[in-house]
């Protein structure tokens, strides 16, 4: 298992299942021409679900071409934030721009890959049949059949399920079905991958391989990845972190910056430090004496 030490980085010598192709020069998405434009930009983003305000006036950006980790305890609003970015969440107010368009814009549907927390695949189809169908929706027409076949084979190889390609999804283990769901999101050329807890329930070897795959995708395809997790040791593998708690963003920084600023040696203890600090700040605000509880990592008070 991963220990929670700062050096728990992806192992340097690890190899992922690689398709035999790879001679082609990676084509850079057009978005890289203007590195200043973030992949996701939110201003005063608020989401209401029933009587509850799940996300409160969030301001943040997700930079392009990097892996941004979305971390926080269960129920803090990670999934709702991801659904808002993908455009499936109702009652979103404020500004939310994704790849230069308002979230949910029809042109974004081919440019975003989205994996829900529960695997959303057809249990009564084989892995290949599942992917064939979603590929036909993304890239329809008889003329695209060869390209689709190539993409499907590659996506299955990416998630290391080539030997199971003809197994029914319903007969797979939970972790394998999760990976089928991930493979669907890898079809086509998503510029933004939104992955809701993609490594839950996977063994350490697979988790490492998947994180290596995520880094490959970010580096060679120039894609932006937003990955949620409530396992803090995965935070060390991200380029940037958004720490969430109770519908608010507690911190937005690199893992290193987080550790140094809070004086903690792991992201986990940095997170706990920030949570305590936020609770403290809320308490002092209630009693009227505003403490200097904020630091440069954009810590916010819990109440407004």
């Amino acid at each position, binding site marked *: 298992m991963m220990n929670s030490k700062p050096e728990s980085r992806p192992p340097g010598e690890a190899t992922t299942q690689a398709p035999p192709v790879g001679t082609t020069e990676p084509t850079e998405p057009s978005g890289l021409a203007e590195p200043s434009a973030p992949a996701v930009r939110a201003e005063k983003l608020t989401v209401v679900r029933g009587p509850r305000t799940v996300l409160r006036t969030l301001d943040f950006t997700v930079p392009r071409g990097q892996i941004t980790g979305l971390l926080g305890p269960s129920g803090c609003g990670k999934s709702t934030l991801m659904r808002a970015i993908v455009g*499936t969440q109702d009652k979103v107010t404020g500004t939310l721009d994704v790849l230069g368009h308002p979230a*949910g814009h029809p042109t974004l549907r081919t440019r975003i890959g989205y994996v829900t927390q529960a695997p959303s695949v057809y249990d009564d189809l084989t892995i290949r049949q599942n992917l064939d169908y979603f590929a036909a929706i993304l890239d329809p027409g008889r003329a695209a059949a060869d390209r689709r076949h190539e993409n499907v084979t590659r996506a299955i190889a990416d998630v290391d399920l080539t030997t199971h390609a003809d197994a029914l999804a319903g007969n797979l283990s939970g972790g394998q079905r999760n990976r089928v769901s991930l493979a669907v999101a890898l079809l086509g050329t998503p510029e933004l991958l939104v992955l809701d807890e993609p490594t839950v329930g996977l063994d350490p070897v697979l988790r490492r391989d998947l994180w290596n795959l995520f880094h490959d995708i970010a580096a*060679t395809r120039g894609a932006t990845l937003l990955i949620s997790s409530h396992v803090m040791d995965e935070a060390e593998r991200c380029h940037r972190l958004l720490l969430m708690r109770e519908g608010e963003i507690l911190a937005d920084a690199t893992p290193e910056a987080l550790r140094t600023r809070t004086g903690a040696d792991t992201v986990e203890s940095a997170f706990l430090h920030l949570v305590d600090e936020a609770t403290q700040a809320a308490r002092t605000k209630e009693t009227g004496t505003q403490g200097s509880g904020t630091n440069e990592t954009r810590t916010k008070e819990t109440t407004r």
Partner: protein
Amino acid sequence: MTRPTPTPAPAPTAKSTTAAATPAQPPAPAPTSALSVSRTTATAARVLRQLRHDPRTIALLVLIPCVMLFLLRYVFDGSPRTFDNIGASLLGIFPLITMFLVTSIATLRERTSGTLERLLALPLGKGDLIAGYALAFGTLAIIQSALATGLAVWFLDLDVTGSPWLLLLVALLDALLGTALGLFVSAFAASEFQAVQFMPAVIFPQLLLCGLFAPRDTMHPALEAVSDVLPMSYAVDGMNEVLTHTDMTATFVRDVLIVGGCALLVLCLGAATLRRRTA
């Protein structure tokens, strides 16, 4: 081979590793039109492929109407006229009921498994999905109705004056109506239990009022008025027209148009219940 590590400032143009191959790119972004033929047929093929992995359901769908007709034939062994009337009506009612059940459960599963959310986040038109389902279950209904009609006409001596092809046409429209109702109703069912309970709620009143048990003009005037606006009444009426007339009568054409129109209308209502954004 260099493996990218999470350095604070990664260059997106990092040296290419050979591990992740660049996927084949479509030449242009695929258009997201209201109805795309290839997306519709892909959806229909997917639904049929799912069913193919479930041979028991197919067997039940195809065999039960035949068994029921067989049973009915010998229940009314002494009065073949009664069998003609009820048998013809049932040829229209079976596809409606079975397609209603199958579709409402299938769409409910699509909603609860998260695949519907995924599909609607992809460039799939709502019309593509609805039309795909209608196409798939329509195909199944053709097989079901062809077998049941063939059995009734050639082996059980169902006495049809008109063409059996017209019986088949009405059966197919009934199946589409069932598919449409199932799609629509599944939007209001939160679980399989509720979906199944919609069957008696939506189908049984129509069954009682469609003229199967008593001629519609002998009912209480209030009920007759209600039966005038229920689509199944026209499905049964159409079947009986074929039963008693050699040619296509004006009443038959009216019945067919009403059933087909209702199916189309409810399909559109069903499409309206699909939401890209949910709470």
